[in-house]
């Protein structure tokens, strides 16, 4: 067994001890995970971003316009001191302005307009099953939207619709929860497979 597998096996078991209760062995393994993760992200960000996209082009190839993002980035550190805090407002303004400008049309298009477009389809255009499916989608959209309509008391037809909407919401939450359980089980099974195959070598 190689050293890496031995360490991975011990750390996996250390994390599993939390299932009994919180303990120093679990906390040591958790702290190690956090420390290693942050260190890894810092190194990757330094080499793949600051060196590749800023320092190498600026100082080796003389790409001088990059002085602007370098200065803006440096101004962000002004936040660490009260007297220089105002400096960080400029890069923040650039970040928020450009970020919102890029994000708003893209999100409006992908998350709203295209979803509406995909929902508004002919009711009876395909096979019988496809038609039933379309009607269920239509009922789900209308009743769920009515649940979030708060300008009128939910009584009568609106009450019935919003109540039906809650059932659609519960179906969604149930499905999502089921998938999440499946996902977590997969992670557990993956670690058990590692322990049995690589660490303990009980299976091939």
């Amino acid at each position: 067994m190689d050293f890496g597998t031995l360490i991975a096996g011990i750390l996996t078991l250390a994390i599993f001890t939390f299932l009994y209760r919180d303990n120093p062995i679990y906390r040591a393994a958790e702290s190690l995970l956090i420390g290693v993760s942050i260190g890894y992200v810092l190194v990757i960000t330094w080499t793949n971003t600051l060196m590749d996209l800023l320092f190498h082009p600026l100082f080796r190839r003389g790409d001088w316009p990059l002085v602007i993002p370098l200065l803006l980035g440096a101004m962000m550190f002004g936040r660490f001191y009260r007297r220089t805090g105002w400096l960080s407002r400029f890069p923040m303004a650039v970040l928020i302005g450009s970020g919102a400008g890029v994000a708003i049309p893209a999100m409006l298009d992908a998350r709203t307009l295209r979803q509406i477009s995909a929902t508004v389809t002919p009711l009876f255009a395909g096979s019988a099953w496809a038609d039933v499916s379309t009607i269920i989608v239509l009922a789900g959209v209308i009743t769920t939207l009515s649940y979030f309509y708060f300008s009128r008391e939910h009584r009568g037809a609106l009450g019935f619709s919003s109540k039906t909407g809650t059932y659609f919401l519960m179906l969604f939450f149930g499905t999502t929860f089921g998938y999440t359980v499946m996902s977590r089980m997969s992670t557990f099974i993956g670690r058990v497979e590692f322990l049995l195959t690589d660490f303990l070598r009980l299976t091939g």
Partner: protein
Amino acid sequence: MKIESRHLAFIGLAVVVVIAMLVGGRPDLTPSADSVRMHEYIASLAPGSVVMVSFDHEASSLPEIGPLAKAFLRHAFSRGVKLVGVSLLAEGTGIGYRLMEETGREYDCEYGKDFVFLGFKPQWVAAIVAMGESISKTYPEDYLGNTYQDIPMLAGVVNYSDVAGVVSIADGSLTTHWMEYGHARYGITVSAFVAAAMVTTYDPYLASGQMHAMVGGLRGAAEYESLIGVGGSGGRAMLAQTVAHLYVIVLIILGNVVYFRSRHTGRK
């Protein structure tokens, strides 16, 4: 040492999973329409096509993401598809490179000629949009420090117009950005292999045609393995997955029986 009921539930789960893993065996699976669609899409790519694979996940989801990624990589390499690996999450960087390198070796694929790994770039929106203009400016060097222009496979790959599609391997919502910026703005075909927990998030995108194909969870990995005729850890874990789910269902029923009985007793 005090043993509580939740400890018994955990021990029971560990016992059924370990027994299932030791027994082995692969249940027969009928691939879902989603898995078949993804398989048909990858199979339809001409040998030599360039596909970008984005490792948009963290290390913690590797037990689920690993089998999915390997199933896709095996299919792509076996079809002679050339792969450009990137990562929008720093933690996916080392894992992505390792998975591509290991799987590429199985098919005698050569780094720089059949596949390349460009590495990580922060600010995913900026990275996706920047690659739409120029991949070489976004990644002047690959993960190993080779200059973009010196990599033979990347000759002629300028931006998304030279890429057949993007396959995002994700455990979170990063694939959404590929659709919002890559697909909507540059028209690139986006497909995804995702953790089961994200399936319901991406279903509306799949239904609206913003995502071309999706395979989800360990079950999806097992189905894809059966479609490409290669055994992998997805199929190996299916028996354990099945008994673990049955165990959870039994616990839910048991919990409800105990609850209703105690309520009934309380009324008396």
